[in-house]
């Protein structure tokens, strides 16, 4: 008796059944992984009271209290004083009045958010820019002590950066780089550079040098060959490296809390300082965290198609 074999698929391919099992596992994992994110985003739209009820409310009356609390500074007033005020003119004033408070001014959140963007993307740009140039040089040119230099670059990553925190703090104070955007960009660039040089060198090594040689013979300088041929080929590696660098500098907490307090403070040290009255203001913190997550998610989605490796390597005959 012959068994029924589905001849439409190759023996190396998974069966429909095993694909279904795989999909099932992935969906379960995704569901578990998304719970904390969901919790944060829903908390952002809960009222202060709903946010701390136990067990947590799945269904709740959406409120913009978190957003308002995050973006304003408020003071508590006596009932008599509140009564003496004219009725609230805007929706956010209404929300604040309900808690017996008045708006004293805007909060510092958005300034901190801009700081995070400037420092995060700024240092990512410099890490990737310098990293690409260095990686290209290490990949293509004869450099004396090349291996030792590469090891030195890697070794800067070998001890925890925070171990150098005190010397850096003193150095920055002398140089006037404490609490400046420039100081933080330089610091994160230095920390990320070793990762970026090593990652990118791997990617550039894989680009056959024949491409540049062909361009040189075709009448181009090395620089224009680099921009016209190598850079588009390295896009995959550059995208991946940029995401790694951004994630590090975006999330960095220890140096940020040590070296920034006002002008250049980023969101990681700022978010824990959002305190409500009689406890933490969870909706405001959740709103801040949700906004904090957005840029990295957007950046990753934009660069996603470059992350799929191997698309452009098809013209290579080996």
């Amino acid at each position: 008796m012959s068994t029924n074999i589905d001849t439409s698929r190759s023996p190396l391919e998974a069966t429909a059944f095993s694909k279904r099992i795989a999909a099932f596992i992935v969906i379960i994992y995704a569901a578990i992984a998304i719970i904390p994110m969901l919790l944060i985003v829903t908390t952002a739209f809960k009222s202060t009271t709903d946010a701390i009820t136990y067990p947590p409310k799945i269904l709740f009356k959406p409120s913009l209290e978190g957003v308002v609390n995050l973006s304003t500074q408020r003071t508590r007033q006596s009932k008599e004083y509140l009564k003496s005020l004219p009725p609230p003119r805007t929706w956010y004033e209404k929300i604040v009045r309900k808690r017996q408070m008045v708006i004293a001014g805007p909060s510092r959140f958005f300034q901190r958010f801009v700081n995070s963007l400037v420092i995060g993307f700024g240092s990512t740009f410099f890490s990737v820019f310098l990293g690409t140039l260095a990686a290209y040089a290490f990949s293509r040119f004869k450099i004396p002590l090349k291996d030792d230099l590469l090891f030195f670059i890697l070794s800067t990553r070998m001890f925890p950066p925070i171990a150098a925190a005190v010397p850096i703090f003193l150095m920055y104070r002398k140089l006037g780089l404490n609490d400046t955007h420039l100081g933080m960009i330089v610091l994160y660039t230095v920390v990320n550079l070793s990762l970026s040089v090593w990652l990118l060198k791997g990617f550039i090594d894989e680009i056959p040098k024949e491409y540049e040689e062909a361009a040189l013979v075709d009448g181009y300088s090395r620089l224009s060959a680099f921009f016209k041929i190598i850079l588009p080929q390295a896009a995959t590696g550059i995208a991946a490296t940029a995401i790694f660098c951004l994630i590090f500098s975006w999330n960095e907490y220890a140096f940020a809390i040590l070296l920034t307090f006002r002008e250049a403070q980023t969101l990681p040290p700022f978010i824990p300082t959002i305190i409500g009255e009689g406890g933490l203001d969870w909706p405001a913190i959740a709103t801040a965290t949700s906004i904090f997550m957005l840029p990295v998610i957007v950046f990753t989605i934009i660069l996603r198609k470059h992350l799929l490796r191997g698309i452009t390597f098809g013209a290579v005959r080996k």
Partner: protein
Amino acid sequence: MSEVKLENISKNFDQIQAVSNLSFTVKHGEFVVLLGPTGAGKTTTLRLIAGLEWADEGRIQIGDMDVTKSQPAERDVAFVFQQYSLYPNYSVYENLAFPLRSPLRKSSKQEIDKKVREVAGILHIEDKLQNRSTHLSGGEMQRVAIGRALVRDPNIFLMDEPLSSLDAKLREELRLELKNIQVNLGATLLYVTHDHVEATTMADRIGVLKEGELIQFDTPSNIYNSPNSIYVANKLGSPKINIIPAHLLAVDVPETVKFIGMRPEHVKIDESAKLEAKVETIQNLGVEEIISMNFNGEIIRATVRPDEAHKVRDSIKFNIDTENILFFDEASQRVQI
């Protein structure tokens, strides 16, 4: 198009002598093939002419200009690489237009378009112009790579085994096309290969390289009929030339002759001949048969017409065209008699 002249070129890579004391001239409009095994310095020679490597010693001249120390772009040569030939992020059209868009050749858009379409026509890839260079078959890729050289009017075309990765049928086809194109354009072309058929079918002159040295530089027929050493004799011809110790044949030769060489087509099976051997294998190629026979412990190959009936292990009689015999001394060098 210009004449390209190499004078006493040497090049080392670390401890390895890639090219040593190489001198030859590719004349204007000439098709020269450098023939040699892997590691003979063929590719290095091309790269030295293109300026992708600096020569340690010697002088390279293109036309009237000494280019020994010039940048690749200044030499105005076209290079077809053995592999990795196309820019993967560009379409076929852009690949062909790329050399014309170089800052050194300010061509107008119309000129570029005209030239690209003309070359695409010559190479029969007109309908592939909009394809991405990654979406081509191996043969098409290599046509585009050759096309990228043809769009230009360089001093010399340098080609590094451009057909080696193609299948046999396509290789034969492109070989003919390439030769036709070269003749029609009157192009100066230096071509590198380890395939002796490519060498003999296309070349005006062949340079045989061995371990970085030029052993012989001559026309295909001279290389075939009058090689200056056993090494060169072995390079051309299929089946290979028979080389046997001189004492096995009762021929009257000077003392210095230690080896005798004869091409398989000069070995004649003849029942009335004196020499006798035993048939070891017979290969039928359709148009001819190759008989390998054991003659006093040496294998001698003869090409015969397939209608001659021979069997393996048969005893067989043969003689040799004496006027076509080649003599070599102890150092494998040719001895003229």
